[in-house]
Structures are given as C-alpha cells and as structure tokens.
C-alpha cells in the first residue's frame, strides 16, 4: 500500500472503525512495530530510522494526550525540552503556540480543568512544538461538539495554508470533505478507492432529488408523476410523504418534475437536489454505510 501526500496538502484516510486506519498511523509514527513488511515515511524507515523520523513528524492522537497534572504551558514547555530545544526556546515556543491556539488565557491552568475542545487544541499544539513538516492527525475531532469541531477544522486549515503536510484519518465524511485535498478510502486493511472528494462523489454517480409532499394521500399519484417525468425509480414512504429519486441530468429533471406535479396538481412543501455525500460514496463502494460498518466492527470487537 502506498500513500502519497503532496507537500502542503491534506490526505484524508477514510474508513470505518476496524478498517486499519489507526494501526496504519501507529506504524507510520513509530508507535507500533509492523509485524511484517516495511514502511517508510519521507524516506525514513519506520523501524531502522525511527529516531530521525520522530524529529520530523508530529502526532495528534485519538485520545488527547496531554498531561493532566501540568498546565497547558508546562505541557508545551516539557514537550519542547523533550524535543531537545533549549529552556528559553521552549518557553518562547510555548507562548507562541498558546497564542496561536487561543489558549493564552488558560495557559497557566491545569489541563484537567480544560474542556474537550481546549484539550484537543492543546494536543494539536503539542504536536507542532518542533514545527514538524508532516503531521499525523488521527481522528482529531472524534467526540467533540459541533462548535469545537468547526473551530478545530479552521485551525487545521490554517496550518495547511501555512505549508503543513497532513495525513488525516477520520470516520466523518463531512470532515474529509471539508479538509482533505485527496481522499483514500480503506476497508479491511486495503485501499478500495482514492481521488478528490469530487472524483469520489462522481463514482457514486447521480444526484438525489428529494420531494416532501404536502398531502400524504397524494403519494401514489406523485410516484406515477415521477415515473412519467423520466427519472429513475422513486423510493419513499407513504407514511412520511417523502420521496427520493436519482436523476442523471440535475436541473433539467427538476423542471420536468415541477411541470408534471403542476399538471397533476400535486402539492409539495420541499423539493431539493443534492450532490451525493461521501456517505453515499462509502455506501456505493462497500455496500455498507459507515455507521453500519462501525456497528459491525464493534460487534466483532466484543466477540
């Protein structure tokens, strides 16, 4: 398996739990010895040149690895010293990073008092202490509330704009969509697709047209009207009055559907055309949705 990340871009590694994302990241960051085979990152062998490799990468993990007994500033200074920077330099870098991650005010509080979002920001800043050219972000926003997630996305985007090269793993399609320049989908330990978000979406094919009827009683008439308008096969539930149909010619289909509905005097409260999401892509590629795959892998883990 070979992953290429162009300098200054983000490669999103997408896949359900148990697909091997975290294992891959742990091997590439020297935390785990590969059982067999070999791996190189930026030309460094992860086993033979582990020490050299460690000084040019940064890792922000799934469970925020910050020291609860120390303050944010002390965490940063400690990591600076362990990167073998001088005392004064470590202190200066800590102040810079606190500033950059809006943690200056909380910098002298113990991290056990931090919120989830603050911990993740500190965790990320710890991986940046030595200004590594390459960053590994392993599910950086798992478990965060939406607001903190968006904050963190902006921070990561900013890092990339400043030239960082990032390998990002995630189970959130939206996250990959927002951050990744290129995406690799892995499942069961192998690559099953790769490309930009747009390319992957194109493989899932068509757009979805969703209609919400005003009168549920008009469900069967609406289905007939949709069939007449030459769209794909309508799917929906009479109980909710919501129908979805795949269309290949986007807005042209929209016009035809509206005209058919008008003629048949079917009222609708909502009509929307949506690009496929990466969730649809994942479904198309694996025959499972990300959530189902995740549930499956959790069951496996318990057995």
């Amino acid at each position, binding site marked *: 398996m070979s992953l290429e990340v162009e300098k200054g871009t983000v490669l999103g590694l997408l896949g359900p739990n148990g697909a091997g994302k975290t294992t891959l990241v742990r091997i590439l960051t020297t*935390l785990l010895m590969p059982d067999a085979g070999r791996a190189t990152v930026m030309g460094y062998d992860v086993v033979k040149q582990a020490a050299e490799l460690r000084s040019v990468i940064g890792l922000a993990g799934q469970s925020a*690895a910050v020291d609860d*007994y*120390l303050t944010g500033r*002390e965490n940063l200074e400690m990591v600076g010293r362990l990167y073998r920077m001088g005392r004064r330099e470590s202190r200066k870098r800590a102040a810079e990073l606190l500033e950059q991650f809006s943690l200056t005010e909380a910098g002298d509080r*113990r991290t056990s008092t931090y919120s989830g979002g603050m911990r993740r920001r500190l965790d990320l800043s710890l991986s940046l202490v030595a200004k590594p050219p390459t960053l590994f972000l392993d599910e950086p926003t798992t478990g965060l509330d939406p607001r903190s997630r968006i904050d963190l996305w902006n921070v990561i985007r900013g890092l990339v704009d400043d030239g960082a090269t990032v390998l990002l793993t995630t189970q959130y399609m939206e996250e990959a969509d927002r951050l990744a320049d290129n995406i690799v989908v892995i499942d069961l330990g192998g690559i099953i697709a790769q490309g930009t978000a747009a390319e992957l979406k194109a493989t899932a094919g068509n757009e979805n047209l969703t209609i919400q009827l005003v009168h549920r009683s008009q469900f069967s008439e609406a289905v007939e009207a949709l069939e007449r308008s030459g769209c794909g096969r309508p799917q929906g539930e009479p109980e909710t009055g919501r129908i979805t149909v795949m269309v290949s010619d986007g807005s042209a289909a929209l016009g035809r559907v509206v005209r058919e509905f008008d003629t048949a005097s079917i009222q609708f409260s909502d009509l929307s055309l949506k690009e496929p999401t990466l969730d649809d892509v994942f479904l198309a590629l694996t025959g499972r949705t990300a959530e189902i795959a995740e549930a499956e892998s959790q069951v496996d883990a318990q057995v």
Partner: protein
Amino acid sequence: MNTMLNEMRWAVSDTAVMTWRNVLRYRRSPDLLIFSTIQPVMFVLLFVYVFGGAIRSGGLNYVDFLLPGILVQTTLFGSTQTGVGLAEDLQKGMIDRYKSLPMARLAVVAGRIFSDVIRNVFVVMLMIGVGLAIGFRFQGGITGFALPGVVVLFGFAFSWMMAMSGVSAKSVEASQAFSFMFIFPVTFLSSTFVPVETMPGWLQPVAEYNPVTAAVNTARSLAHGGEVWGWMWRMLAWTLGILVVFVPLTVTRYRKV
C-alpha cells in the same frame, strides 16, 4: 564515540525533565502526598504504641528497634507508587506522546524513579523527625548519618522492580494489587517489626535470607552500632542484583508497550 556521549548527555537531560514533571505531579496531588507521608507516620505511631509493649526487641527500646525498620518499609511501600504511576501514564495515552518524541526511551521510567527517590528522601527525613519527637535516639554515633542514604538506595532498587510491574500490568488497579501482594509479605517476613528469633523455627530461615532483613539490619546497626558490614554487603549485593536484572528488563519491556 562522540555520538554515544552526546546521546548519554541527552538521556540525562530527558530524565531530568521527566523527573521535574513527576515531582510536580506529587506536589499537585494531595492524595499522593498524604499516602506517602501521613500513612507511614501513622504506622510508626500505631506500632510503637499498640504493639510496642508486646514485642521483645532484644535490649533496645521498641521505638529504637522499629524506626530503622519502618524507614525501609516506607520506601518499599512507596516503591509501589513507581509501578502505579507508570501504569497510569501508560493507560492515559500520554505514553503515545512520549513515544512519538525523539527522547531517550529510558527517561520515562528513570524520571519516574528519580522523582520517587526525591520523595523518599523527604519522607525519610520527616519520619526521623517524628521518631525523634516520640523518643527515638541514635545509639551508635556518627554512622547514623549514613542511615537515610542506605534506606533510599534500597528503595531505589525496589522501585525498578515495581516499575517492571507497572509497565507490564494491564491496568493501574492490576499493578497496585500485584505490588501489594508482593510487598506486604516481603516486608512483614523480615526483621522489620519483630526480631527474627521470635518467629517459629521453620520461618526463621525465610526471614533471615529475605533481602529486606539485610536492609533493615544494616539500617539498624548504622543507627545503633553493632555488626554493620556483615549485613551491609548482603544489602549491597541484593541492591546490585536487583538493578542488574530489572533495569534492562524494564526498559526492554517498556519499548514494547
């Protein structure tokens, strides 16, 4: 040769950073400080006043007999904290951070152990103070000054042993349970609290060859005079032996975590 020297210099620096971190940890967790100060003081008071009257302590006042022993016991009980602290670091994921840094592998364990040495120096001094307040007196003159050093050195060796349990345990609780299952009998089956001669005959050889007895008798003879070297070389041999076995074992084991 030069790079090796350089590496060693960095390993020392990394260890100093980790020691500082662990000392801060002690200062900031009141429960740990209480465990490591109030508990041993409580032991001294309970033993002196509750058991003291009932124990034949061979010519010495019981408080004089007990204190050198209980200093050793305290550092041994303290050494379980080395294992527990390491197990906690491993569990909390902080270890992934350390392992992704270009720091010396040894420093995480060594920093933990040196911070425990610092704590032991502090606790031993505190307990000698408490002892003096309740009637303990050095009977042996100048050799008494060597007492804290010997006790702390022996505790240092045991810390390495407990560190091995810390990096091997699956959880903090497991490390704690294992440490105490080991430390309790090894401390009590010795001359720490009672003279070995008062134990049943079949048990005496066990206590006699227990390394803890070697350490306690060394400490006792340093405090009150008597045969020092006979016990001291045994204690030093045990200390060296434990270090030779457990330092490489622990570091190798930690690398694989």
